[in-house]
């Protein structure tokens, strides 16, 4: 589920006990790293009968159109893939991974925002791949709710409590609407946490 940003959760603020989680906890949500119970299904592997698995977009679409789901479905949307193809099936998808092949490839920002705003998708949107720490606050504003953390720099920053956000927003995204506690004339919003 989407983290409850509206209740004043500051993403970068680590709870000390949980921040000591071992390196096997790679899924970051507000406050803490968690053990990731999702797996990526090998493209050649048979469909599982239970568990939580990510499939590539093409295979997922095929399954959604023609099959029945016997496991918790996640879909990996690569940067160049069209997230709107999932529009008709979102209630059957528990997690969507928007992937960064390189931090400079910002297509995942649009994918996340389309999910959050055009489709009001309420499942998990997780960022994967080569994003950097300094992109994370903006990704959250675009609708990302979890991060697959593999980069030691990202991990080090989060463990230190870094969350490099500028909390005055000139342009609300769908997600920011929940953050408003200091409405400005027209567009501008301050998180003011």
């Amino acid at each position, binding site marked *: 589920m989407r983290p409850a940003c509206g209740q004043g959760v500051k993403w970068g603020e680590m709870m000390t006990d949980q921040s000591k989680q071992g390196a096997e906890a790679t899924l970051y949500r507000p406050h803490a790293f968690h053990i990731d119970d999702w797996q990526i299904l090998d493209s050649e592997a048979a469909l599982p009968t239970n568990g939580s698995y990510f499939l590539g977009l093409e295979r997922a679409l095929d399954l959604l159109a023609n099959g029945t789901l016997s496991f918790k479905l996640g879909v990996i949307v690569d940067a160049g893939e069209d997230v709107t193809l999932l529009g008709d099936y979102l209630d059957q998808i528990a997690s969507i991974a928007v992937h960064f092949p390189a931090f400079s490839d910002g297509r995942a920002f*649009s994918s996340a925002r389309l999910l959050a705003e055009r489709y009001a998708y309420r499942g998990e949107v997780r960022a994967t791949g080569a994003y950097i720490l300094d*992109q994370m606050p903006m990704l959250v504003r675009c609708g990302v709710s979890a991060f697959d953390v593999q980069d030691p720099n990202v991990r080090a920053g989060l463990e230190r409590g870094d969350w*490099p956000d500028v909390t005055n*927003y000139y342009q609300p*995204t769908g997600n920011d609407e929940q953050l408003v506690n200091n409405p400005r004339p*027209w567009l501008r919003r301050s998180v003011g946490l």
Partner: protein
Amino acid sequence: MYRYDEFDADFVRQRVAQFRNQVERRLSGELTEDQFKPLRLMNGLYLQLHAYMLRVAIPYGTLNSRQMHKLADIATKYDRGYGHFTTRQNLQYNWPSLKDTPDILEELADVEMHAIQTSGNCIRNVTTDHFAGAAHDEIADPRVYAEIIRQWSSLHPEFTFLPRKFKIAINGARADRAAIQVHDIGLQLVERAAGGVGFAVYVGGGQGRTPMIAKKVADSIAEEDILSYLEAILRVYNRYGRRDNKYKARIKILVHETGLEELKSAIEAEWANIKDSVLKVPQSEIDRINDYFAMPSLKEDGEGASKLALTRAQDAGFSQWVSQNTFAHKVKDHVCVTISLKPVGGVPGDATDKQMHVVADLGAQYGYDELRISHEQNIILPHVAKSDLYPLYQALVTADLAEANAGLVTDIIACPGLDYCALANARSIPISQDISNRLGAIERQKDIGALKIKISGCINACGHHHVGHIGILGVDRKGEELYQITLGGSADENTSIGAILGRGFPAEEVTDAIEKVIDTYLGLRLSEDEPFIDAYRRVGPAPFKEALYPAKAA
């Protein structure tokens, strides 16, 4: 002009604190240069040939005297006593040290300035007509919308990692002085049939190695819809712009490869989804921003015109300066003044700290505290009463800022070139200086008339050579700097891309070649009233080719 409120001030302070943290991480070695690069670029900090370069945003080229004084102070304190005004209405410091840059940004924040989005693959500083709010031929003040767009685009969470940089220009007058058709998005304010103003929208213009003129995608977008329409364009670009090759990543390539009609329908489809969202700009907000840009209360200067005529009759130098460096104002007893940063033989766009202080003081004294930077790298005082022109001119003469060459052949645009820039193949500044020295005699300049020479030191075209009436492009051929000459470019409402005339010239022959081109023009123009660009459009390149490459023509 626009003034920060608490929200804006806090925004910039937070950004400075964020950058200070990043610089500390770099200085301590925690961040490698590779990791630091995207972060510093988001704050306008480049690594050049010899040093860091900090590019400071001057939003839509507008500033007041306090800000200009601060720019001068920073040049004194952190740089080598000068700054360089750019074609994007920004200011560049060429010699800051990395450790000082957070302090520089802090000082800029004191006067409501910053370096946000002056580099990186994001929406850059919005540029506009340097006479905005003052020009006699204005439909509406473009700064109002430039400010609304500045706010919307500042640290936009979705559009900060675009395929490539993204430049928006707005023009509010009937004549295009913002070169909107060579920008990623060009906005032209228009009167709407239904009343009120709107925007004609052009997409996909640009220079660089593949120069293209923008295509019109909309005739008249309502004011209230401008942000949702821009957001639709940016989203289509962010999702579909090419990322496999940085030289094909600008939106102009997307327009070219997708085709105008298909792209237009993609934009329209995207827009339909967000048109009625929170991005609709309320009239109250447009009015609120408009109030910031109200015309200052200009003094009555009924005697100004007759006094001016008298003084001009007594001082020929002044008279030449008035005819060349002033522009008609909305209010009859005032004019817009161009303070040339193109002294004959000088470096285009450079100003010393002392000159910046002088201009700031003059702006406060005679210009209602308003200054502008033009994309042609000059400083503008947009409102000056006619009777103040003479004392203003005399002060400018004392400060070596009274060159009467606005729009003439020595009003050259040049990029920093190989003297500073890590991308350059060739030097631009010495070429510009040499041409300026050769043609600088004022009688000769007057005889030649309106002529825009623009010089780039590499194919990235920062010196706008594609749209110079005469363009000069420095290239590297097996270790030798060669200069190609293009003719017929223009960046106004009749935008055109110049055509290469022939093989390039080594540095020491460029000025001769330019002189030959100009002499050819002088020989074939129908009268003194036919400017270079009109003559070129009439006769085409042939006579110029014959003059420069006689053997081939024979």
